[in-house]
């Protein structure tokens, strides 16, 4: 889960990572005090807000409110701005980059630091990005700060500041179950290193132990949210074939196969590893809300039994009065019973994926 910049900075302050002075405003009237020049920044979970006009400067309460009003009315890359962050404008001498994330390949946290911050880090050449693979059993001791300081060109007091920021950021990373913590830019301003922006991604599976973090809804569509709350892994796509499958890998392979056959999926829906009539039945509820032109069910029954799935499909067809074409592939435990039940209810059912998709293809071609 992505945190907003201001949420990330709250965590930074909690862990002793310096941030600019500032406050959040949800409406222009929340701005009641402005000292010197300030920056008003859109709070959205997407990059590139600067180029989109989501960052403006002001020198008085009135001006800041005006800028906030403009920004709060914006939509940036499809994201509505729901708040602004009003912060002191820093005197920037130099911009650096610092992040910590989980490297799947080494199965260890990776620190990346660069003296070329303030730009998209992908545009920085590899030799200017200093990487340090953290041994999780050793953690980030001060020597890691010294190694990276040397490469970053920090010495004396700046090396000490950088080391402290790094150690604190790593504590935050571990204690808040982060997938990523990123400071870009880390700004040198009047002799101090300050986190001028924040990007923090928290592992959703660990949210139960961070009650202070509320789940941000912004990253999902309303239908995705609804289906997720009902327990389905569900993602909207832009095609017209509703898909219900079991297992993330098989569901992905189903979408891949549809595309290779020239068919476009409307959604990704993974039933999971359960064996319940109702779970199968209710999956149709969300797929139908996405208004597909046909539905493909692809089940390989292991834990899930094919007769249970068949019952669920039949119940859905009745309850939701589905008159779209439904093509079903049922294989695995109790497959024959399942296919027979479906045939009796007038639903095409195949034993293998290939024939099911070929049938769907011919239906869709017929319907065009």
């Amino acid at each position, binding site marked *: 889960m*992505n945190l907003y910049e201001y949420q990330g900075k709250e965590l930074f302050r909690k862990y002793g990572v310096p941030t600019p002075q500032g406050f959040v405003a949800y409406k222009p009237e929340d701005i009641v005090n402005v000292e010197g020049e300030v920056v008003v920044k859109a709070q959205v979970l997407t*990059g590139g807000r600067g180029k989109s006009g989501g960052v403006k400067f002001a020198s008085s309460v009135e001006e800041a409110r005006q800028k906030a009003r403009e920004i709060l009315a914006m939509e940036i890359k499809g994201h509505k701005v729901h708040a602004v962050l009003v912060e002191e404008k820093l005197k920037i001498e130099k911009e650096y980059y610092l*992040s910590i*994330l*989980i*490297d*799947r*390949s080494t*199965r*260890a*946290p*990776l620190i*990346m630091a660069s003296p070329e911050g303030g730009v*998209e*880090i*992908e545009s920085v050449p*590899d030799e200017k*990005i200093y990487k340090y693979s953290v041994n*999780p*059993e050793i953690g980030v001791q001060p020597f890691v700060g010294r190694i990276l300081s040397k490469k970053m060109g920090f010495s004396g007091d700046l090396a000490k500041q950088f080391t402290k920021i790094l150690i604190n950021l790593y504590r935050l990373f*571990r204690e808040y*179950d982060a*997938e*990523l913590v*990123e400071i870009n830019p880390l700004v040198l301003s009047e002799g101090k290193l300050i986190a001028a922006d924040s*990007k923090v*991604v928290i*592992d959703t*599976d*660990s949210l*139960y*132990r961070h009650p202070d973090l509320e789940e941000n809804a912004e990253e999902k569509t309303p239908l995705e949210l609804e289906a997720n709350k009902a327990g389905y892994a569900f993602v909207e796509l832009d095609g017209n074939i509703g898909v219900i*499958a*079991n*297992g*993330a*890998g*098989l569901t*992905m*392979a189903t*979408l*891949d*196969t*549809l*595309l*290779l056959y020239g068919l476009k*999926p409307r959604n990704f829906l993974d039933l999971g*590893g359960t064996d319940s009539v109702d779970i199968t039945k209710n999956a149709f509820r969300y797929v139908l809300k996405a208004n597909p032109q046909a539905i493909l069910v692809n089940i*390989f*029954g*292991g*834990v899930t039994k094919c007769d249970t799935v068949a019952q669920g499909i039949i119940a859905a067809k009745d309850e939701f009065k589905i008159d779209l074409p439904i093509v079903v592939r049922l*294989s*695995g*435990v109790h497959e024959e019973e399942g296919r027979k039940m479906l045939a009796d209810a007038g639903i095409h059912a195949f034993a*293998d*994926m*290939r024939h099911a998709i070929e049938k769907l293809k011919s239906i869709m071609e017929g319907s065009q």
Partner: protein
Amino acid sequence: MSVIVDENTRIIVQGITGHQGSFHSGEMIKFGAKVVAGVTPGKGGMKVHDVPVYDTVEEAMVHEPDATMIAVPARFVKDAAFEAMYHGIRVVYILTEKVPLHDALEIVTYARSHGYVVIGPNGPGITVPGKTKIGIMPNHIFRKGTVAVASRSGTLTYEIVNALTLNGYGQSVVIGLGGDRITGLNFVDVLELFEKDDDTEAIVLVGEIGGTAEEEAAEYIKKNVSKPVVAYIAGRSAPPGKRMGHAGAIITRGKGTAESKIKAFNEAGVPVAEFPWEIPQVLEKVYK
């Protein structure tokens, strides 16, 4: 010889009295696995499928287990895994999904630096047809043979194993590595085992988009694997993940996509099937 576990492996099930633990213990026993004990705190003294249940792993150690299946809720997985490793249980299979990332990191770090094997989290386990099974793969799809399968998926594994069996290719071992970002075993780890395993003559890898495990596998195969390997990659159609943003992209630098993985495999001489059901035909070309 077999990979990681065999017919003598003595298995306990942590969380045996739960819905999943109980059902799959039964299936494992039917498959021929030696399930010697179960552990559920507070349920000591019960029996599940005639298997004695204990409150703690310490008590279950009288049965001299060398493997465990962990089927407890996600927030208790770390505790259960360390309980098993503290008592020296060598193979730790974690069924559970949604295990916090940093918990998985701690478990896998400790395991790897102390010689424990972790399978999962969030995978279907390991099956050695004719010998044993730890996990949740459906019993009926297997046939004893010479093809080793390693997969990051669950159901898609069954799909492919089933296709292999129907086409006459039995399996020496099938390992589900787990779908999470941090898993105990990667492709490279199991390729090393498959290459050494006398019972294995050919290898099937079932990959997914995300991470660079397939690209690393391709590199490893080029240098170290003499046995024929074929692959399938799921997720060609998926839009690139945005969550890790630019920093995530730096680690992978263009890797991680289906195209990158397919290209890497092809360069390593590993044919990649376009459809899951094509695996047996693709295999036939390199393994006769």
